[in-house]
């Protein structure tokens, strides 16, 4: 039988710099550009002078998550980071510098920070983690795959703890953002990061990660959701970015008693919003129950992330 994997800490950073439930507000329209320098200094304790916006989002979220642990995160903890678009702003900067009619030379700092794994590097460096470090970047399901790889490596005994996150930045204007990520007119653009600390140790765990599962486009989603549910256990669906409202309505009809938690209203639309949604589950004490995140990729395949919130 597969080893269970437990969630020990979580943190979510939203597009208004919100890091706790009391600070979260439903977005009505696109949030203004986020300035993170002050929050970096408060949370991380140092200035990240040359770091990109994406790195700042990852650094704040991951450090908050680590600080919520009851004990320090060991040095051999692995980092798994999902990012749908990776470095957008730094890549745009070097593109303008190098491509015609630009001057043709890249700024060294912009070039270094445009590396798509720099966020995961900073996360490890700030937490003093010298272990496995993987960045998954592929638009939809980037966070889900990062979570899957972490859980699988934990279950296989290859690592003892994992810091798993998802991070994406917006593109400063709705028009620019829409060229990269198709949003419905009623979806505000978003950015942020979400982080979980996982291990196979059950002691003081806040939740259990039951499974990260990919199913084909024609799979019976309602049946899959039922599979994890215990008798008399509440079931809450967290619909991801690419789940249409009609599919949610269909599931509500098919699964009497199903609760739906619209976290996207708090964080806006971005490829790794799933990380925000799952981490924000643990913002405050929440009644035990089963929570399942569902999202689809461009090919229609679905991925589930099933989490059981444990009694405190």
């Amino acid at each position, binding site marked *: 039988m597969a080893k269970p994997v437990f969630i020990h800490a979580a943190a979510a950073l939203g597009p208004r710099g919100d890091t706790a439930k009391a600070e979260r507000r439903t977005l009505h329209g696109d949030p203004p550009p986020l300035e993170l320098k002050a929050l970096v200094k408060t949370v991380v304790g140092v200035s990240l002078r040359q770091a990109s916006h994406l790195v700042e989002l990852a650094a704040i979220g991951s450090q908050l998550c680590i600080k919520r642990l009851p004990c320090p995160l060991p040095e051999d903890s692995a980092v798994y980071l999902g990012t749908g678009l990776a470095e957008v702003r730094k*890549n745009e900067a070097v*593109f303008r510098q190098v491509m015609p009619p630009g001057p043709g030379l*890249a700024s*060294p700092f912009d070039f270094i920070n445009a*590396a798509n*794994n720099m966020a995961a590097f900073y996360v490890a*460096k700030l937490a003093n983690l010298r272990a496995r470090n993987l960045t998954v970047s*592929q638009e939809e399901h980037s966070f889900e795959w990062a979570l899957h790889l972490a859980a*699988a490596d934990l279950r296989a005994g290859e690592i003892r703890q994992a810091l798993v996150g998802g991070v994406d930045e917006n593109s400063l204007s709705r028009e620019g953002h829409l060229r990269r990520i198709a949003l419905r007119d009623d979806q505000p653009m978003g950015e942020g990061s979400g982080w979980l600390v996982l291990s196979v140790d059950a002691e003081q765990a806040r939740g259990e990660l039951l499974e990260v599962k990919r199913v084909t486009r024609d799979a019976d989603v309602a049946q899959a959701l039922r599979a994890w549910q215990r008798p008399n256990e509440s079931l809450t669906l967290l619909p991801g970015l690419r789940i249409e409202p009609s599919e949610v309505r269909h599931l509500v009809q098919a699964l009497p008693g199903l609760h739906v938690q619209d976290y996207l209203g708090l964080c806006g639309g971005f490829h790794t919003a799933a990380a925000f949604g799952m981490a924000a589950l643990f913002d405050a004490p929440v009644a035990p129950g089963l929570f399942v995140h569902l999202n689809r990729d461009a090919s229609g395949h679905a991925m589930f992330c099933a989490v059981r919130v444990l009694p405190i």
Partner: protein
Amino acid sequence: MPAIHIRGLGLVSSYGRGVACAVEGVRAGRTGITPLSLFSLPFQNQIQVNQYDHAPFPPGSACATATMQAAAREALAEAQLDAAALRDAALIIGTSSFLFAGEADYRRTLADTGEAVMPPLPPPGQAALHVAGLLGIEGPVLTLSTACSSSANALLVAAAMLRRGEARRALVIGVEGLSAIALSGFHSLLLLDPEGCRPFDAGRRGMQIGEAVGAVLLEAGDATHSGDRLLGGANLCDTHHMTSATPDGSAMRSVMEMALADAGLQAADVAVIKAHGTGSLDNDTAESAAMRALFGDDLPPFTGIKRYLGHTLGACGAVELAVFLGCLRAGFVPPTAGFASPDPALRITPLAAMQSAPKGPAMLNFFGFGGNYASLLIAHG
């Protein structure tokens, strides 16, 4: 636990299409250095590159997709499998960035219309689902982007998925195109050697960038069967600095030790090493220190192959595995092209002349920006 068999290899490189032509070029001692014709740069005459022939492929970003397909089909053909064999396979792509594809589309638009309109820059994984669709792959699809260790890590993740039974086969593709942005960035960092890559040489001054696509088809199989196998490997983050290694090589040594442990091997079992060998001062110094510390007086022959192929960045894991394994299959270990004068500070020297392929396991090392390191152990024959 099943063994991970390497069933097929595919390559598009500056030597042409196919692993065989690259191996023959290496055997003949020809480097794959070419003129840069894709675009012009203000410092064009100060660098050496490896550019593949784009004529057989469609222009713009579609070139990346077509080259990935070409490499994948070669790997399938070697395995004597048809496309249906990939239906439930995993596709794992490793690339440092897909900016080269955005650049290509931008240049086309600029040339066709005269308008300089920045396109939405493609994220690393943009092509993955498309390529999966073209190859009929319905299994897991993911893209790793960990700088120059990207496709080495893709091989490790693929092997882990096969061992866990998540797929029976996995196609790993490392892909990288020449990018004006990457060349300009490395030039700004003073990391390009005007004379081309000279791994572990006293006069080395930096890298030589190349473009290539490598495909490796892995399959879970019986551990008692012989043949080429991925024995194990490891990944580690060196948090010393964004772009340079811990100078004493301790992090590089650690990832090699972890890889040996994963493969169930001792340092003394390693018969030959394909070093990362970028030709940069820092990398080669730290890598030499790591090899000295780990292997001591029993350092097996080691070689660097980036002067042949160029440093293909995120693709180098799959590309260099394909070429190095191709050389071993052909019975030889290639000498370190570009190496001429030992650096006394390194206290070790790479292979300067071709030698016969030894029987034992080979270690392949890959070290990237962001301290992302990967080490692989393979068996051949």
